[in-house]
């Protein structure tokens, strides 16, 4: 499962569900109500240390997979060695971590914890559950680009996140196939459709596409929206400061309708892994997805043959905006009183801290300037450049928007759009209104 998949939803895929779940849900709301302190006690683990000048820091990590877990271990080890402050890490399976974040933050959270940029960070910041870290950013601000800084900011203009790594979304393709057929990287939308037509006449599926799981299509929506209406409109729309029922949104779907004939017509029955296979087998020309795609190619001959280009420009801002979800660390409200925790976050914001992480987990791209790039493959380097040249970084629809909007509204809406090219923006607005009002 991809990071996005994990980000978007809970554990069901892992088979943790059974029929009893249904019965439980009758009372789920009630359990959330009555058992809030109880649940958070389960998620937390060790009690957080508090008070200034503490020599221990607790760190809640949702990075439970083997590689990232070890990578964060390397970071905490390096920090302990450097500062003499002991870090207690509580690793929680990532789906649980994300699903229980509400109760976690209200109960006894760790001083620092893994999270990501976007709406949900800003949301908890607005609710006063996070500690601002402007002082940390004074130390590490120079290590980050403006786009990363913008993404780490809460809606109150204060800083909350220290970015660790990110991974860009863009078009991936096989160099050898393109060289053989003489295709060239499209820079404009028209070039993209022309290229797609050519690929179609060559018997290829021009744009690989999979949306059985619902979330991958959001990437196409985001890019079309940002290229047509700009980065700020994407942010305002996902925060529901803009209405869905307006020509700007309709135009996104109109443009998408031009692309639909070139996207894999069987997308609704396919997972991104199926699509990755098609691209690897040279059955399709290109694939718009996050860079986690490359993890699918275990054959080095194939993985070395993969290249990347950013989404072509359309009406606005050229190719300035890039979709590159950022993962990093936040400080809980309690953790804000622990100066050691601030030091820990500051450490992660240095090239030294990020190198310690990247030495173990090389699938992602370190965000701090000056981080060691010598081990980068040419593809990684290209993606890193694309991110550092970007003027604004979006976080993907499910991180920028209210999760319920992404999960409950956009997935069915986009799937039905893919099916027959119809979308009811009035209904999208009606649903958005109701869901955002509940927050």
């Amino acid at each position: 499962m991809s990071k996005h998949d994990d980000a978007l939803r809970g554990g069901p895929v892992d088979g943790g569900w059974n029929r009893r779940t249904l019965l439980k849900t009758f009372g789920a709301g009630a359990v959330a109500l009555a058992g809030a302190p109880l649940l958070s006690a389960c998620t937390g683990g060790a009690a957080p240390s508090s008070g200034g000048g503490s020599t221990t820091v607790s760190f809640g990590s949702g990075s439970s997979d083997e590689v990232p877990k070890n990578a964060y271990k390397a970071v905490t080890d390096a920090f302990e060695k450097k500062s003499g402050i002991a870090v207690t890490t509580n690793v929680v399976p990532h789906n649980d971590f994300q699903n229980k974040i509400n109760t976690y933050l209200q109960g006894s959270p760790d001083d620092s914890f893994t999270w990501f940029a976007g709406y949900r960070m800003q949301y908890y910041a607005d609710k006063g559950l996070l500690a601002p870290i402007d002082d940390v950013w004074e130390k590490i601000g120079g290590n980050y680009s403006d786009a990363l800084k913008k993404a780490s900011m809460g809606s109150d203009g204060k800083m909350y996140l220290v970015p660790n790594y990110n991974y860009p979304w863009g078009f991936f393709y096989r160099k050898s196939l393109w060289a053989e057929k003489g295709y060239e990287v499209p820079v404009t939308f028209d070039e993209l459709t022309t290229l797609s037509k050519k690929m179609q006449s060559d018997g290829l599926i021009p744009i690989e596409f999979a949306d059985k799981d619902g979330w991958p299509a959001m990437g196409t929506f985001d890019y079309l929206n940002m290229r047509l209406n700009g980065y700020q409109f994407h942010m305002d729309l996902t925060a529901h400061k803009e209405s869905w029922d307006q020509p700007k949104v309709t135009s996104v779907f109109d443009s998408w309708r031009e692309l639909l004939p070139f996207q894999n017509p069987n997308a609704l029955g396919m997972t991104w892994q199926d699509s990755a296979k098609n691209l690897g087998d040279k059955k399709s020309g290109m694939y718009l997805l996050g860079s986690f795609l490359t993890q699918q190619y275990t054959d080095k001959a194939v993985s070395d043959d993969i290249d990347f280009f950013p989404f072509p420009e359309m009406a606005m801002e050229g190719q300035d905006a890039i979709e590159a979800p950022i993962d990093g660390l936040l400080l809980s409200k309690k953790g804000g009183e622990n100066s050691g925790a601030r030091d820990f976050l500051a450490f992660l914001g240095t090239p030294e801290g990020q190198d310690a992480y990247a030495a173990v987990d090389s699938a992602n791209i370190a965000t701090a300037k000056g981080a060691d790039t010598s081990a980068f493959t040419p593809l990684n380097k290209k993606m890193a450049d694309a991110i550092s040249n970007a003027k604004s970084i979006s976080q993907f629809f499910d991180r920028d928007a209210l999760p319920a909007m992404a999960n409950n509204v956009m997935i069915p809406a986009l799937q039905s759009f893919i099916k027959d090219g119809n979308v009811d923006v009035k209904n999208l607005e009606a649903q958005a209104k109701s869901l955002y009002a509940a927050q």
Partner: protein
Amino acid sequence: MNAASGTKTRGARSAQRAPRGRVRRLSGRDKWVLGFMVGVPTLIQLVLVWIPTLLSMALSFTRWNGLSLSDIKPAGLDNYRFIANDYPPFWPAVQHNVLWLVFLALIATPLGLLLAILLDQNIRGTKIYQSIFFTPVMLSLALIGVIWQLFYNRDNGLLNFLLGTAGTPQATDWFGDSNINIWAALVAATWRHAGYVMILYLAGLKGVDPTLREAASIDGANAVQTFFRVVFPAMRPVNIIIIVITVIESLRAFDIVYVINRGTNGLELISALVIQNLVGEGQVIGVGSALAVILLVISLVPITFYLSRAFGKEKES
């Protein structure tokens, strides 16, 4: 159960004869034990079933972000209005639940009955067949997902391979085509449900007094007549259970669509919508609770039917 109800009726009768007589016979210790035995299950029932249900109902009339209690705002019927008017997956979900019920009732349940009858004839290896048909009921959700993926996968699946269309553009997209995937899911549901029904009917068939069959054959009834006129009516208690199980299974149908695509794109079911709205990050507590209440109200119909039948029968005896 029978013994208990027997005592009850006897007790009731004696109570009629000598009012308050029964009460006097209980010592203080008896009262304590009785209170304990009634109290504990009641408490468990209250904490695990009734309180959550009532809170869920209450929450369905509110908007809440799940953070602090002071954020709960009354919303009146807004959540229900939202579900009925603005929530596109809801009505398809209701239709699919009805389709599910019809399919289980007309195809899966009779299939289970047929299997039970076949296996009830003393054929060789009947235990093995029983185990095979019952296995799906015991499998975990993840395994079911894997198994049906192997069958239905568009490019590599067994089904398209047998049809000779695997890997070609004509291949049927069993999971992705929203006109077809509900039927694919129903076949998978039948695969589970039939095994379940089979086991219940096997037990039922074993419980039918063999002298009934003998009497029927002496009267000159053929096998079909014997079954439908004599054996099937004799299994009335099992039949009622099967009806209720079929209805409840179709209402709580969830796992199979969830492993396919989490209940979207043609596979919407009310239960899947409840999960989507109550669990995880897409949590909208008000709407999710309202959906749960709707499902509860629908479920109450067969449950009430079952209970009234069950208690009605006890009274008769």
